[in-house]
């Protein structure tokens, strides 16, 4: 199938016909989405403060536990984030087609590439309208795969490796993830990668939230509401 044929098929997909409403994101996917967003908010703020602490507390050390609480917030959110990610993987296996999208890129599908080109041109103001999609648009899909799925794996591997340093040699965190530290060239380098990962995710969130709001207004289908109710309505 060449790109033109793929484009024609995308345009005339009966599933996305005007006025139709489809059930896209099942409850666990939606719940995970918002829980994950919350975890990332807490992780990014607390993580930043771990690397660049607030100004010092006055008085006796025994009167305060500020870094302790910030690190606790980070680790609590980190565990939630990691467990939620595992549950999300489980749901990709048992859930519907759209629950699986986050974990692969359909690079062999001409329709996906046609959609990606169209989406890029749409964002460069070269197209009057984007295509309609039941699940993710290809550009969103690409970014979500890189900056959510791949980044989550990076953050979990480096994060638990760093956690294992405190938990000690032989702890399960150390046994499962300790190999990451020599691989990246030491503890300091692992901190740097973990830190860069945060900025990657933060950059994604800025673009993602903008795209979600913009598409909600500009595109031919519902967006934000779809991540709340699970249903998507095609407008034209």
């Amino acid at each position: 199938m060449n790109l033109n044929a793929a484009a024609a098929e995308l345009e005339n997909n009966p599933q996305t016909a005007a006025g139709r409403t489809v059930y896209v994101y099942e409850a666990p996917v939606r719940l995970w989405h918002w829980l994950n967003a919350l975890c990332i908010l807490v992780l990014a703020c607390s993580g930043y403060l771990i690397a660049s602490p607030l100004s010092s507390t006055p008085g006796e050390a025994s009167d305060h536990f500020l870094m302790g609480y910030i690190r606790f917030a980070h680790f609590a959110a980190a565990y939630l984030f990691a467990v939620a990610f595992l549950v999300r993987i489980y749901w990709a296996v048992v859930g519907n087609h759209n629950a699986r999208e986050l974990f692969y890129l359909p690079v062999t599908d001409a329709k996906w590439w046609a959609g990606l080109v169209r989406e890029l041109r749409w964002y460069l103001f070269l197209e009057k309208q984007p295509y309609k999609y039941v699940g993710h648009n290809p550009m969103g899909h690409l970014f979500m795969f890189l900056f959510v799925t791949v980044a989550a794996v990076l953050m979990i591997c480096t994060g638990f490796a760093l956690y294992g340093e405190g938990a000690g040699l032989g702890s399960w965190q150390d046994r499962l993830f300790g190999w990451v530290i020599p691989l990246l060239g030491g503890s300091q380098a692992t901190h740097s990668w973990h830190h860069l990962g945060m900025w990657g995710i933060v950059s994604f969130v800025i673009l993602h939230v903008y795209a979600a709001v913009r598409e909600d207004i500009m595109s031919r289908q519902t967006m934000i509401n779809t991540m709340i109710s699970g249903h998507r309505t095609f407008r034209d």
Partner: protein
Amino acid sequence: MTETFYDVLRRQGISRRSFLKFCSLTATSLGLGAAAAPRIAHAMETKPRTPVIWLEGLECTCCSESFIRSAHPLTKDVVLSMLSLDYHVTLMAAAGHQAEKQLDEIKKKYKGNYILAVEGNPPLNEDGMYCIEAGRPFIEILKETAADAKAVIAWGACASWGCVQAAKPNPTRATPIDKVISGKPIIKVPGCPPIAEVMTAVVTYMLTFDRLPELDRQGRPKMFYGQRIHDKCYRRPHFDAGQFVEAWDDDAARKGHCLYKMGCKGPTTYNACSTVRWNDGVSFPIQSGHGCIGCSEDGFWDKGSFYDRVTDIKQFGIEANADKVGGTAAAAAGAVVVAHAALTALKKAKKSDSAETVTGDK
């Protein structure tokens, strides 16, 4: 006749009482408990003496200097009696051809049975010509001596990771010894230099038990490199409380608060300084008011400033750390969003303008 360690010690004039004291001291410093002392004594009385050959490549002799300053005089006497009999360029009595002959003899007589301790590392560029010993490149001597050794000790950051002579751009291609020696058990005792007590304990363990102590993933003895400086730092309560030194001359510095913000590498450095300390257990860098520089970590010269918490990442240019690189990316994303939103609004306004004209016409 096979000589035991005990025979050697007695010959050196060490009394039985001192010998037993040494055994219990060693057992404790290795964290083995009181029950291990008789086992150490027994091993030293019965096992044939294992010679140690100590080679020095590209290095500054700080490892040897540290080693001979082992705090407890007893340890010093005993361990030195065990070692100096053999081959150690700075400590042995022999010199010149005589010394080299001795080296050859030990290698022949104890083939496969001696321990090789290496201080410094071999430079590989120009066929190893940057480090010549007894008229030959060090790399040749090292490989030859390692081939017949039972086990190899890598002393210090040089032998373990490369240290300053291997820092970028590493003109002589100084190379850690585990990259050039294969098929032999190698134990890394990093640090610049390593702590004296750690060195003597490692040697004693290997000589008495005839095996390597338990090692971590990177080949370091767990008993001394199993925890970070940060994990056992006496200033840790100030870290947890969020009380930091913000400038070298501020009040917090005088009060001895945490040096995290001054770039202390304690949180990323595995070593025993915060427990064993230095110079007879007197002090260690953090206790003297300066952050840890991470001298026992792989490539510590190339890991950015000793005084930054978020250190530079060289791949992104000279002065770029994770916050500068990432913050720039996030700011760029933000700028793109703002510009894109503005353009979108502009286009929409134009479109509704023309739409209004159409309605107006109706």
